[in-house]
């Protein structure tokens, strides 16, 4: 009996020692350094900080599960002060001074566009939103958009859905007002192609410089020419002005599409009911039926008190999911192996399941959204629909 008790305690000690040893070994594992920059101050800081939160949540989750390849991850996130040139300097610093193992995607598109050639120069995988089609058409082999933010695809979802609307109920005459910058211009591809496919005549097609001083003249023109489809391809400030001008001038097209501004929380919070029924696009939405979105919603609500997780919180997380799957799939930190794995395999993210082409892009997709009763709802594709679309747009009250 005594002998068996001794044996038991010996076993306990051995197990405890092995646990301690294993724990010490894990703790002693050199962390995988993942570095880059985000705009944590300056013009784009609001969004940049959400990307950062997405990255940090991912790192916390990964480390909680024992890391990647048995090693913890450590993020090195520099502040590029919303300056693309600074983003380039900092990614060089991360690569050459910090000697990071993996790169973090940046924000906004201008920074990603500037960083992509640097990643290519150092042959390091760079997963980000990219800077629209132009940035992915430069022959880079180490850059991936997972998901990308593609202006050129922005209204794909809208036109795909519009094809399901009976022909006699579709709009016939479009007015297009676009901010005169690379983001605005990138939206035009999908507008032109979609209008042509559906036989929608473009009566007004104008660009404006930011900041927009007044939208009244634009909307007065659109109303006078009896256009029944409005593309307001702008950001939040000009989008708000355009929408308010629509209401004041009692301009009631069948549908209003707003470029970038209407999928951010400020749109519904600040505009209230006036912001309803506006269509837009997105590459990620928390209501998408992909595993992991429920977790994102929970964290956003509990930790950040955000009823709807901000777009870039999800983007940041999805980019890191991609990087993680590449490392785990390739079982290596060798950048060329990671790149080749991403080229040959499907990644599963909260934004969708993607297979990449030679440009580093998935098949063209953009989810169609509509603001309905203050919530950004998913309209297209139908299997992801969270609410029936409201069409035609009810007249202003």
């Amino acid at each position, binding site marked *: 009996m005594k002998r068996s008790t001794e044996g038991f305690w010996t076993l306990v000690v051995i197990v405890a020692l092995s646990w301690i040893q294993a724990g010490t070994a894990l703790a002693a594992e050199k962390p995988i350094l993942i570095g880059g920059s985000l705009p944590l101050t*300056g*013009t784009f*800081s*609001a969004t940049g900080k959400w990307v950062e939160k997405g990255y940090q949540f991912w790192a916390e989750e990964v480390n909680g599960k024992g890391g990647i390849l048995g090693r913890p991850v450590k993020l090195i996130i520099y502040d590029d002060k919303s300056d693309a040139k600074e983003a380039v300097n900092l990614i060089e610093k991360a690569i050459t001074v910090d000697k990071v193992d993996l790169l973090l995607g940046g924000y906004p598109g201008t920074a990603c566009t500037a960083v992509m050639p640097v990643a290519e120069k150092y042959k390091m995988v760079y997963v980000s939103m990219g800077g629209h089609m132009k940035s992915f058409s430069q022959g880079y082999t180490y850059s991936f958009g997972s998901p990308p933010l593609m202006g050129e695809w922005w209204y794909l979802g809208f036109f795909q859905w519009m094809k399901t609307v009976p022909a006699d109920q579709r709009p016939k005459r479009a007015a297009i*007002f676009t901010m*005169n910058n690379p983001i605005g211009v990138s939206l035009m591809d999908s507008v032109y192609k979609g209008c042509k496919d559906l036989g929608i005549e473009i009566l007004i097609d*104008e*660009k*404006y*410089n930011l*900041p927009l*001083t*007044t939208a*009244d*003249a*634009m909307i*007065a*023109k659109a109303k*006078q*020419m009896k256009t029944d489809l409005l593309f307001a391809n702008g950001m*939040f*400030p000009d989008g*708000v*002005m355009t929408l*308010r001008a629509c*209401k*004041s*001038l*009692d301009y009631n097209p069948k549908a209003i599409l707003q470029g970038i501004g209407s999928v*951010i*929380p*400020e749109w519904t919070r*600040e*505009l*209230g009911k*006036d912001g309803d029924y506006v269509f837009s696009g997105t590459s990620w939405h928390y209501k998408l039926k992909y595993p992991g979105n429920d977790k994102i919603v929970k964290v956003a609500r509990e930790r950040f008190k955000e009823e709807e997780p901000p777009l870039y919180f999800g983007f940041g997380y999805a980019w890191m999911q991609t990087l993680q799957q590449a490392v785990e799939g390739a079982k290596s930190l060798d950048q060329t192996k990671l790149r080749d794995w991403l080229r040959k395999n499907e990644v599963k993210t909260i934004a969708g399941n993607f297979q990449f082409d030679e440009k580093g892009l998935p098949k063209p997709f953009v989810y169609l959204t509509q603001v309905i009763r203050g919530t950004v709802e998913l309209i297209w594709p139908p299997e992801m629909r969270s609410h029936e679309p409201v069409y035609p747009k009810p007249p*202003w009250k």
Partner: protein
Amino acid sequence: MWNLVVILQSALSGLLLGGVFALLGVGFSLSWGVMKVINISHAAFGILAAYIAYWGLTLYGWDPMLSLLVSIPLLFFSGLVLHRFLIQKVTRAREIVVASMILTFGLAIVLENAMLFAWAPDERLITTAYSSRALFLGEVILKVSNLIGFGLSMAGIGGIYFFLYHTHTGKAVRATWQDPEGAALQGIPLNRVSMIAFGLAIASAGAGGVAMAYMYSFNPPAHNHWLIFLFLVVIVGGVGSVIGTAVAGLMIGLITGLSGAFLPFQWINVFLFGLLMVILLIKPEGLFRK
């Protein structure tokens, strides 16, 4: 496509807009004219007043106009304090204009970051019950919020004009601006007069900020955009000229609006700033400065 309704609509909207630019610009012109201080932080104070209006409305349901009862005295007092402890020291510099620009640029950054810290960089929008309401003149509309902004501007500019031309202190401000040494010899306390002028300028920025917030969304860095219009209005109107600033504001608004009716929108700023260059070449002191 030239359409009479579009032209009238564009002209009216432009005029209302220009009135608001004028109010924001008049205080900027005053501190530049009287003290030779180019206050780069001027529009940032406008943003501060816009935030006071926003939070007054959001938290307590105050109409943005009521918020002026808080923001104008607050900003006037802030102007006095800033003048006493910062601006006054700069006015002793050899290159007042350059020194003041550097100082107030720093002030703008401090103010912007303080607002970012307090209220985050989120876009804000003043949305009242009448925000999107309009009066109809046939097919042409007048937005109620723009009319209120315009009314506020005219009242503000009128008040500053009255102060400068019909009060003892105001006359002292003008005398200081026109001939500082002569004014000092007449026993006018230059520092005190400048301090009041600076306080008034900052307070007017507050009123202008609220008027702007009726029309535009804002966040702390938005003052950089607003600053462009300030320079435009003051340079066209003539530094220190209240009437000049008011007329220049209306003119610029009208040109901006009408350009929208006649030109492709992307050419509006090119046209506007091209016009500014021509004005500077022909009349570098501004159109309305004698």
